[in-house]
């Protein structure tokens, strides 16, 4: 019984990280209608810059801010200079350009910092509280709190702010954004910038756990993908619920079934959800326009 409840609680903690990974992808999908494969590499750039600052004496807070600032900048640049301009050829080339960007960034990182994994600072490893006998460190608590506020913030942004509403509309109808007074292109750039910031934030929670290497944030991407597919592409709330569910499910699979089946179970459940609800559990059903 203790095994089960600990699995559940830790599943939720890691699942929230998956959700965060999904949230950045949703932001880009909302305005552009495709998925970025390069978010992990954008985060890695920010993290390595942050680590260099930390090693030369910057405090944790400054390190974290620097990581987010650099990721925001890189995310915005990738969107503005590469991917958004390529949308004129269609969604497929734009999505492929994110793969190209990922290859370039990871190559540059391999050349400069190398492949060795290294440790990354975290908020604090000391125990903050204990839930049902499971110890939680301050890092866990910070992760949950920050993620929660990010999700609430994004939810409010998309439903209340003029730009957020325009972002929601723009993927359905190009003119909608213009009608709301926000140009299409600017919306996309904002979404890339926000997604960059989110990936940096994600990196701050991932790197201490998985240790920092050029691929550590990338390995989480597949969980983010699944979170948004299962949750529903246009739903931030869906990403939160689905990410958490995936965290719990993978944990239970690993504990009770076989750790080597985790990715397969992930794929199967994703396919299953898509078959039953093609727009995800919380996605809006789109009307076919003829």
């Amino acid at each position, binding site marked *: 019984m*203790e*095994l089960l409840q*600990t*699995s559940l609680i*830790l*599943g939720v*903690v*890691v699942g929230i990280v998956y959700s965060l990974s999904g949230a950045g992808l949703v932001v880009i999908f909302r305005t552009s209608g495709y998925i970025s494969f390069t978010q992990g590499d954008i985060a890695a750039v920010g993290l390595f810059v942050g680590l260099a600052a930390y090693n030369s004496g910057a405090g944790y807070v400054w390190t974290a801010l620097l990581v987010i600032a650099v990721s925001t900048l890189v995310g915005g640049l990738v969107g503005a200079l590469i991917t958004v301009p390529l949308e004129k050829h269609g969604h497929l080339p734009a999505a492929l350009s994110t793969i190209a960007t990922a290859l370039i960034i990871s190559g540059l990182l*391999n050349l400069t910092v*190398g*492949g*060795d*994994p*290294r*440790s990354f600072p975290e908020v604090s*490893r000391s*125990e903050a509280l204990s839930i049902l006998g*499971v*110890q939680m*460190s301050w890092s866990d608590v910070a992760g949950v709190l920050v993620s929660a506020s990010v999700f609430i913030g994004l939810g409010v942004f998309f439903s209340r702010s003029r730009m957020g509403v325009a972002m929601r509309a723009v993927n359905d109808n190009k003119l909608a954004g213009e009608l709301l007074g926000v140009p299409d292109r600017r919306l996309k750039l904002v979404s890339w910038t926000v997604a960059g910031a989110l990936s940096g934030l994600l990196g701050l929670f991932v790197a201490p*756990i*998985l*240790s920092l*290497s050029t*691929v550590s944030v990338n*390995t*989480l991407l597949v*969980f983010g993908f699944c979170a948004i597919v299962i949750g529903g592409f246009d739903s931030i709330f869906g990403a939160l619920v689905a990410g958490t569910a995936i*965290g719990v499910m*993978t*944990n*239970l699979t*690993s*504990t009770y079934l*076989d*750790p*080597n089946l*985790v990715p397969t179970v992930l794929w199967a459940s994703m396919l299953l959800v898509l078959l039953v609800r093609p727009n995800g559990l919380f996605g809006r059903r789109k009307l076919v326009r003829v």
Partner: protein
Amino acid sequence: MSKKLVGLTVALTTLSTALAGCGGGGDSASGAGGDEIVIGAFSPLSGPAVSASSGIYATKAALDKVNDAGGIDGHKIKFIIKDDQFDPAKTPGVTRELVETDRVSMLCGPQGSVPFGAVKDYLAARKIPTIVNAGAPTLAGEYSYLVSSPFDGVGAMLAQFAVEDLDIDKVAIAYSDDALGTSARDGAVRILEADGLEPLGEIKYDITATDFSSQAIQLKATGADFVSIPAAQANVAGLVINAAEKIGYKPIWGLSYAAQNKTLVDVTKGAIDGRAYFATPYITEESETGAEYAATLAEYAPDVEVNSGATIAGYTIGELCVDVLTKAVEAADGEVPTSAQIQETLSSYTADNDYIQGIDWSDEPDGAAAAQILQLKDGKYVESKPFAPLP
């Protein structure tokens, strides 16, 4: 139309011949027949597994040292390293290049169980002997010789150490479901059973996973005081240890040379200092022989991490190769030995020297039958239990 096609074919064929000329022509003169002994190896010089390549640089350092001292009976050793990125689809390509183009007479320290598995049969068919830098016992064969201790024995030695030396009878095992992981687990179980014990848990993990909290929970639930993860590489061992310590589970950890490097210390932020033991058949940097090793490395491969298990293994293999080649040159009356002569030397070779103990390839081509236990203390690896035969 047809005229143009013919033209195109001629052009393309000429181009391809020209390209081929650039690729192959160059080094064929420097192959066999000269004064040099040509040997080779493959290693992940790039790609995701690049951090494993420290071993090959150490092997090269051992060979360079001999070359600078005049070579073996006047013969310089030419050591050719090719990059296979730890990708078994690429390994056969670079191995063919070594054998068919560079005409190496043996492979010295090619890295990785799976990559070597991809070429083992090919090398045997070409009768090219290899001293392998990998731990899977199934790799041993007529032409492939292992140096590292078999993980069955490593797992057994750690379990024995826990029960007999640390006086702990609550032992759990974490393992990956692959050849190394399962044989290490079986070795540990064998020893525990002999002592009338059984492991409190055998917890499986996936080395590519992003989340090890499930394993941490299961390990904690066993209540073991000693957790053995013999076959884990440093990065994976680090993730398992971090996940466990994060939920307040801090046992004594049993590891092996595979995890013995700065990555583990760095990733775990030194938390396991004093609580981590490593079974290894290799020397320590602190030992007498280790001083010479460290000096050589500082001269010939200054960028490589000195007290990493992989580096020491690579260096040891380099020393072994030199020893083997020296004997083969003797057998060839001072001439450059052929592959067959090297194979003959290898098949009767035994080693009980400063660097390695318990190798007897005249019996079986498998790894060292002896190992020692090191403890991680103040960031250094110090001897906790001297060399002893594997149980």
